[in-house]
């Protein structure tokens, strides 16, 4: 099941045809897809309905064969029964691949139709996404999500690509990543994954030069596909974050062996994923945090963090979290503590706590944080800095994010910031995020982020 050459055409089509537009209902999914691609994307877009005619002043073709140009990608939004014949027609026209957004296949008792799609696809080496999916989001080329653009939050271009079994969860994740200032390269909802599944998409994103981080939402692997996926993931140079739903203990059956009883579906999944190069996020907030930090530092691998804060309590919570996550909080040598004292403002010299966590106290100014960050950027016993900031302190200004970003210098050690996420502090948060430094919503979130770059398993830094 490899379509590597053709899968790229799904994400970067030269031309697009939407089959199943309505001549009367502007909210029909096919119409939404046709309109948004025609207006907002660079790909030449056509529409098809057997009745023909015009919509929005554009010609409606009666079939895919009637379109005079070559078509790279087709979006099929018709009744399920028509889909196999439409795919065969696409193949004879030389279309490169299809997204089938139509539902009512296996999920509605029509496994036979879904099997037919699979047969057609495999026999003709014709890649199909879906059915029962949103398809691909790949700006500036194409967007087959039947959701009006104005109803979504703007998504900036970035280096994270997402694969999801659920379209709804995918869009939610994109919104949440956008809120954190994380840019998306591509997203794909694979729906019933009759042909192209998470492994096929992983194969593509591993080679995609615009993707540095691969995020995957999974409900379950199809029979035996978990094994193929893990083998592919273990050969990935790029970090992979997985979140799985359906964690209720399966596998326990009336009278059974101890092994079958303990190794339920989720326990088995989690154990095998954690022993692989993938990172398992256990909830959505952890998933978003992991994608955010990996997007900023995809090649990082950290072991020893320095926590810099204005509050002893925040430092203690972060320290506890790091301990649980297996991240060292190294002692700061006395000679370094003395040297750092000399770099701090007179107001805090005598009161700052300079053993790790570094507590610069509520009297610290921007300059003190910058001095401390710069100091530890050059220390070999620290490979990550967690900066826990309280924007309500009088000495901290909204300049701090940009100034911290300036001092990261050539060492490019990962910095993970924490700041309370409320609208009032938006300008502080943007100061970091717009300069490429991830900001967690909570101290625990900052620990999730540190754990993600500890667990990503990549020895060499490419940043």
């Amino acid at each position, binding site marked *: 099941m490899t379509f590597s050459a053709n899968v790229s055409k799904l994400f970067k089509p030269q031309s697009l045809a939407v089959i199943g537009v309505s001549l009367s209902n502007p909210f029909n999914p096919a119409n939404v897809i046709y309109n948004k691609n025609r207006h907002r994307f660079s790909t030449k877009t056509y529409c098809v309905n057997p009745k023909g005619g015009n919509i929005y002043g554009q010609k409606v073709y009666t079939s895919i064969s009637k379109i005079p140009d070559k078509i790279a990608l087709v979006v099929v939004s018709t009744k399920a029964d028509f889909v196999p014949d439409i795919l065969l027609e696409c193949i004879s026209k030389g279309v490169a691949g299809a997204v089938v957004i139509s539902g009512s296949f296996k999920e509605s008792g029509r496994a036979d139709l879904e099997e037919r799609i699979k047969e057609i696809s495999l026999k003709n080496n014709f890649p199909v996404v879906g059915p029962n999916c949103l398809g691909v989001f790949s700006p500036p080329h194409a967007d087959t999500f039947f959701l009006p653009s104005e109803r979504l939050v703007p998504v900036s271009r970035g280096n994270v690509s997402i694969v999801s079994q659920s379209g709804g969860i995918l869009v939610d994740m994109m919104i949440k990543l956008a809120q954190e200032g994380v840019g998306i390269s591509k997203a794909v909802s694979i729906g019933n994954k009759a042909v192209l599944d998470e492994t096929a998409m992983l194969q593509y994103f591993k080679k995609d030069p615009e993707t540095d981080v691969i995020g995957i939402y999974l409900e379950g692997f199809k029979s035996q596909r978990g094994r193929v996926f893990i083998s592919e993931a273990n050969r990935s140079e790029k970090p992979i974050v997985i979140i799985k739903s359906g964690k209720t203990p399966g596998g326990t059956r009336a009278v059974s*062996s101890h092994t079958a009883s303990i190794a339920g579906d989720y326990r088995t*999944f989690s154990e095998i994923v954690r022993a692989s190069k993938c990172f398992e996020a256990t909830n959505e907030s952890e998933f978003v945090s992991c994608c955010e930090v990996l997007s900023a530092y995809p090649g990082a691998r950290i072991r020893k963090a320095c926590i810099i804060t204005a509050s002893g309590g925040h430092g203690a919570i972060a320290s506890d979290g790091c301990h649980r996550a297996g991240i060292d909080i190294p002692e700061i040598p006395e000679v370094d503590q003395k040297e750092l004292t000399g770099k701090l403002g007179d107001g805090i010299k005598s009161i700052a706590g300079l053993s790790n966590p570094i507590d610069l106290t509520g009297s610290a100014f921007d300059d003190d944080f910058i001095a401390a960050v710069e100091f530890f950027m050059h220390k070999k016993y620290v490979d990550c800095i967690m900066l826990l900031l309280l924007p309500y302190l009088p000495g901290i200004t909204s300049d701090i994010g940009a100034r911290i970003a300036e001092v990261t210098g050539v060492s490019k050690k990962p910095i993970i910031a924490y700041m309370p996420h409320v609208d009032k502090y938006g300008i502080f948060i943007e100061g970091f995020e717009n300069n490429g430094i991830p900001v967690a919503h909570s101290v625990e979130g900052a620990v999730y982020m540190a754990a993600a770059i500890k667990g990503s398993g990549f020895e060499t830094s490419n940043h």
Partner: protein
Amino acid sequence: MEPQAKQILRLYGLATTRFHWVKHLRDLMKEAHAIGYPIVMKVVSKQIIHKTESGGVSVGIMDDKRLTSDFNKMTKLPGFEGVIIEELAEGLELIVGSKRDDQFGTVILVGLGGTAVEVYKDVAIRLAPTGKQEALDAVLSLKAAPLLQGYRGADQVHLGMLSTLIVAFSKLAHELSETIASIDCNPVFCSSKRAVIADARFMFKEL
């Protein structure tokens, strides 16, 4: 049942405790003396999965008198087809098992074994077949790993023999995956001298 399970394991080069399957009282004494006390006696029955809970295990038999009386008690258990008598192995009790998983195919499990295995659930699960380093990593990922590494002055478990056993077991589980749904080797006694399977059960796929 246990005797056949152990014979299959031996075919794959897996160490099992020395045992005899005794069906009649008349053979009991001779076989017991050949092994030598102390002896463990376990019921052989298709109807009993968890022998301990059913009164089907007797540990630390030191003489002929108890040997005979425990045998007579076990003859009354459901589905009685004899007993296994075997040497008393010593060491830390682990479980090494496998199951056919729908998403991943055959997986193996290694963890803290014995009768409380489902209480602690301190196990690691890996794809079968597994390599030696992966087997060792799985063992060392257990919460109980310090117990295997000489906790509080105890002898360290022979991790090389243990991981060799896991590798051989994973090969067996992988090769037999078409017919077998699940295997439990529990307990596997691990000491500084050896890793030996003291009990095993194969659950076949439903046809």
